[in-house]
């Protein structure tokens, strides 16, 4: 076991994937000699040559469209978009082609492309460097969308994403790149599509993914002082989504808050809240609440701390879960659990 940062885990995953599968090609802007601006591709070109890890011209639609052709020719492109917002020029290629090619061709042409996107904020970046773009991708059928929150997941899920026959948008929380975990690589965690309980708890469930997972854990720890025993679920994978684990978790606690960094309106947390209340309505003691970024453009560095959800905002939301009402309806719980499960 060694303390391993998420960045190191991702680098190791790319390295192992290149070594084990000759179809894997890593390309994008500055991924070669520089090793990427976050150094996730560090040393790959030196180890495996320009054939396997190379710089492209500076054009994201180009990178995505080129990846489509490479995949059609049998390769497994792993492309890096330098920051969330710089993937936007590739939006048409991602939505109109990458997401749809298998479907258009009745399964004859799958596109095993991984689009790595350093996502979300909290790193003091100037404008356009801290957007959260997961909702755009999660709303697009044909894409898988995952967001690891631990170094072990980063390694395991990236390996799995590269092996996946379908395109995967792989969201790497920028602010977690340097967070460490004691692990041994290679490692295999739960498969894509499964959520993970990061902390047990009986009173309320926090659902998080990517950068909000450590936040949820901190908030849950802080909530102990209030006497609340808070469970934390890491969704891990947005598409496919683990309804089973998550609905079961919420049914057990009867209270739920969903966390995301992205602006709240029509974000992934809205989807999670909508699903959870659809599936757990009768087990719920209070509405499913959301704690998200405000519905504003990502602010400048000096204001990001007020924009991004923090422990206090999560605690406020937990406090609004109508704890006082609980006794009134507790008697209904048995009935409700049965109804939801049906």
């Amino acid at each position, binding site marked *: 076991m060694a303390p391993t940062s998420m960045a190191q885990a991702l680098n190791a995953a790319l390295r192992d994937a290149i070594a084990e599968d000759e179809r894997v090609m890593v390309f994008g802007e500055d991924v070669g000699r520089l090793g990427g601006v976050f150094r996730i591709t560090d040393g790959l070109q030196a180890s495996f040559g320009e054939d396997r890890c190379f710089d*492209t011209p500076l054009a994201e639609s180009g990178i995505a469209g080129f990846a489509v052709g490479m995949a059609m020719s049998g390769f497994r492109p792993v492309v890096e978009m330098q920051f969330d917002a710089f993937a936007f020029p590739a939006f048409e290629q991602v939505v109109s082609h990458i997401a749809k090619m298998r*479907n258009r061709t009745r*399964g004859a042409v799958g596109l095993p492309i991984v689009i790595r996107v350093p996502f979300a904020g909290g790193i003091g970046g100037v404008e356009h460097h801290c957007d959260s773009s997961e909702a755009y991708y999660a709303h697009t059928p044909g894409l898988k969308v995952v967001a690891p929150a631990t170094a072990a997941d980063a390694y395991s899920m990236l390996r799995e994403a590269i092996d996946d026959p379908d395109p995967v948008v792989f969201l790497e929380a920028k602010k977690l790149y340097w967070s460490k975990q004691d692990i041994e690589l290679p490692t295999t965690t739960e498969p894509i599509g499964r959520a993970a309980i990061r902390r047990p708890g009986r009173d309320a469930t926090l659902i998080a993914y990517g950068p909000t997972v450590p936040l949820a854990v901190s908030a849950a720890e802080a909530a102990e002082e209030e006497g609340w025993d808070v469970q934390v679920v890491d969704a891990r994978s947005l598409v496919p989504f683990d309804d089973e684990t998550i609905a079961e978790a919420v049914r057990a606690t009867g209270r739920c808050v969903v966390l995301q960094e992205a602006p709240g309106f029509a974000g992934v947390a809205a989807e999670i809240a909508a699903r959870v209340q659809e599936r757990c309505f009768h087990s719920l003691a209070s509405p499913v609440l959301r704690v998200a970024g405000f519905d504003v453009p990502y602010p400048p560095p000096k204001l990001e701390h007020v924009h991004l959800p923090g422990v206090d905002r999560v605690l406020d939301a937990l406090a609004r879960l109508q704890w006082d009402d609980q006794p009134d309806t507790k008697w209904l719980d048995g009935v409700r659990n049965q109804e939801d499960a049906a």
Partner: protein
Amino acid sequence: MEWLPSSSPVRLLEQPDPNYALPEPSRLLATYRAMVIGRRFDAQATTLTKQGRLAVYPSSRGQEACQVGAALSIGTDDWLFPTYRDSVSLVSRGIDPVEVLTLLRGDWHCGYDVPSTRTAPQCTPLATQTLHAVGLAHGESRKGNDTVAMALLGDGATSEGDFHEALNFAAVFRAPVVFFVQNNGYAISVPLAKQSAAPSLAHKGIGYGVRSEQVDGNDAAAVLSVLDSAVAHARAGNGPFLVEAHTYRMEPHTNADDAARYRSPEEVEHWQQRDPISLLERHLRAGGHLDDATAERIAGEAEEFAARVRTRMQEEPEVDPEDLFRHVYAEPTPQLLEQLAQLRTEQEAL
């Protein structure tokens, strides 16, 4: 400068050219045959659309020299990246015409088998396929194959950013791609003069270090000859090549379009005089390579071809609602399985 295209479009049928040789008569005759069949197919598709059997059809009547030239200048191991306009090219490449029409009939997004035909689905989002062609061509050469990818696009599509990125990627990676622009004068209603102020669209190659040429797109011999050398250039590892063909679509943009709103009958009539099939036919007849009997035989083949399409298009294959879910992912997600179950319940209730 060697990297400049000709200052006017290359022609061969009516005059010799110092840089391009006239293709062999047998090749020209094969081209003629494909053009005649292609045109008949195109007319059939237009008729089917009027009868409501196709959702939409973008005709390429008038562009047959380009349509057929593109198909015949590449081999079966090469790849074609066509657009919605290029059905005739696909048919000339030997793809089952009914499978070609599947998209336009509305059964599915692509009716032919992409990997075995080595032909990408007909592409609608303009210019996007040019990047796919570059990636594929690069991938194939990485594997040591001498495959060439031919990307078809229109004059309007050259304005899209993706075309720029494709030319640039191709040049930087020296990818064996031929970009073949069928400049038919219009992007729906917008004439070339509002699309570009360049000396020619072929001149766009210069800014990427991509060799380029412009050709009379209604002169089948010139199209073939220029595409041949472009394909040879790419195959030999010299990098991409851009060809602009000056041509004209005789029909509206699609059956849904009203071309009278934006162009004059005189203009159409002018191009009628340069009909690519007539031009080639005249040449072949003048050289003694085509006589009435052969012309009639080919016309007969074309009729038969169209008749078979017509008959086969009578039957509308059943579409399976569950196809909605079948190919979204290699394995459906739990969410899709739930939705499939919902659909099944709905269908059973019918």
